[in-house]
């Protein structure tokens, strides 16, 4: 059998349709990494769902207590860590008291990393914030939504001591805090389960506490039904949400700088989709003719 009769040469469009995915990966790698070397200041409007998160924190009086739950791991750090730093900046700037906890084992560690970063800011350094008085890290407790439920009755049921082993009764910040009745706002940073959905179902619905959240871009659309029903004050969705929040805070930081990279990457993906469709239609036209 003659092999050449069985092997028709692939046309340009066929080659384009079956392009090696590594070429696409290469273009994406360049699109994401090169813009990181450029310093740009992007201005973007703050969407209503992000503005609501900003307003929820801004409305609190000095001394109000904010519970921040870190429910993510290093995999989601690029999206959620800038939000965490912005939350801390906003809270400390407004002299709010911060209680940190985590439903994921790595969560409290991520909080420590964010705190280390935020404490380098001159204006935050000047406040001379003290552990146990201005902020506390309760650490991680296993139990997922059961932890959320039990904290509604008494924090000590889930957290008898903080991450350093100090009993809560010996921590000045926690002396007046028994359960959600003594918390003015909950901020949740979530990358999956357990996360914002569980906080809505077990804290907001049962104990009627106010909740705002920061989610990965993939998860944020699932939160919109809760915003519409008023169960969630607002949500920061992905890198864009984080960038909008930094702009609302008038403190552009990592998320804003990463947005340029994301913008170019999205543009490249759209370009590839256009090319793929042109190839698809050209081939189809050729086959029908």
């Amino acid at each position: 059998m003659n092999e050449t009769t069985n092997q028709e040469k692939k046309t340009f469009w066929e080659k384009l349709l079956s392009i090696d995915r590594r070429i696409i990966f290469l273009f994406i790698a360049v699109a994401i990494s090169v813009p990181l070397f450029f310093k740009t200041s992007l201005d973007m409007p703050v969407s209503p769902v992000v503005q609501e998160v900003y307003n929820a924190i801004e409305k609190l009086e000095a001394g109000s207590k904010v519970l921040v739950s870190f429910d993510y791991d290093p995999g989601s750090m690029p999206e959620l860590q800038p939000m965490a730093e912005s939350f801390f900046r906003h809270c400390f700037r407004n002299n709010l008291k911060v209680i940190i906890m985590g439903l994921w084992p790595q969560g409290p560690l991520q909080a420590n990393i964010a705190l280390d970063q935020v404490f380098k800011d001159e204006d935050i350094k000047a406040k001379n914030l003290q552990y146990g008085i201005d902020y506390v890290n309760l650490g991680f407790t296993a139990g997922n939504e059961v932890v959320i439920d039990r904290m509604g009755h008494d924090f000590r049921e889930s957290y008898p001591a903080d991450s350093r082993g100090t009993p809560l009764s010996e921590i000045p910040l926690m002396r007046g805090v028994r359960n959600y009745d003594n918390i003015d706002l909950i901020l949740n940073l979530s990358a999956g389960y357990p996360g914002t959905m569980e906080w809505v179902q077990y804290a907001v619905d049962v104990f009627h506490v106010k909740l705002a959240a920061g989610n990965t871009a993939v998860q944020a659309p699932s939160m919109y039904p809760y915003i519409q029903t008023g169960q969630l004050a607002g949500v920061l969705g992905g890198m864009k949400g984080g960038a909008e929040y930094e702009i609302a805070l008038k403190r552009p930081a990592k998320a804003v700088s990463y947005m340029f990279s994301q913008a170019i990457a999205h543009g490249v993906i759209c370009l590839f989709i256009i090319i793929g469709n042109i190839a698809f239609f050209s081939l189809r036209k050729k086959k029908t003719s």
Partner: protein
Amino acid sequence: MRREVPLILTAIVGITMIIAHFIPPLNILKNLFEDWFFIIAAFAIYLGILNLILVNGDKIYKKQKGWLFGAVVILGFLVITIIGIFFSGGKSFQDPGTPFYYIYMNLYYPLSATMFALLAFFVASASYRAFRARNVEATMLLLAAFILMLGRVPIGEWISAWLPEGYRLGDAADWIMDFPMTAGQKAIMIGIALGVVSSALRVILGLERAYSAGE
């Protein structure tokens, strides 16, 4: 009895959990069952670790295909466990400054972030393959994807800056998120909730026995 006992236990626990949602005094039982699950799951971790070591150990011993990977798994497991337990210098092993924290920041975090970052590449290749305007529905999906991808980044603002406010790509993306997307999500969630109810009832009634090796 081997088949009946698990079915009876499942029915009792399942019905109790449902009823406890409506009858507050039964919450004590509900909490008890939840605690029991966490205890069992916690102890079950040892089963998993034992299996991991046995499977990979066997692979190394018999020099099967890929035995080097097995060696890496066991070595990594032992090193991190020993360091975490014995070399924390009196502090909690997760505290900054401990060797475990060093491994977490310099090994675990970059690896985990790298795996997550693969999504960026895979999204591009999956989009290139999947978003073809084959028919009307596929075309609508393609258009929605375009609007959202461009509307969620500053490029959308630049491209559509000439349009009046409220009609730009960002606004279109927000509209898609607020209405069609939310409606679709809610519909899927209703279907899923009903599926869970039906599935749970089948399990509680003992109709669905395959998961417990009953059929």
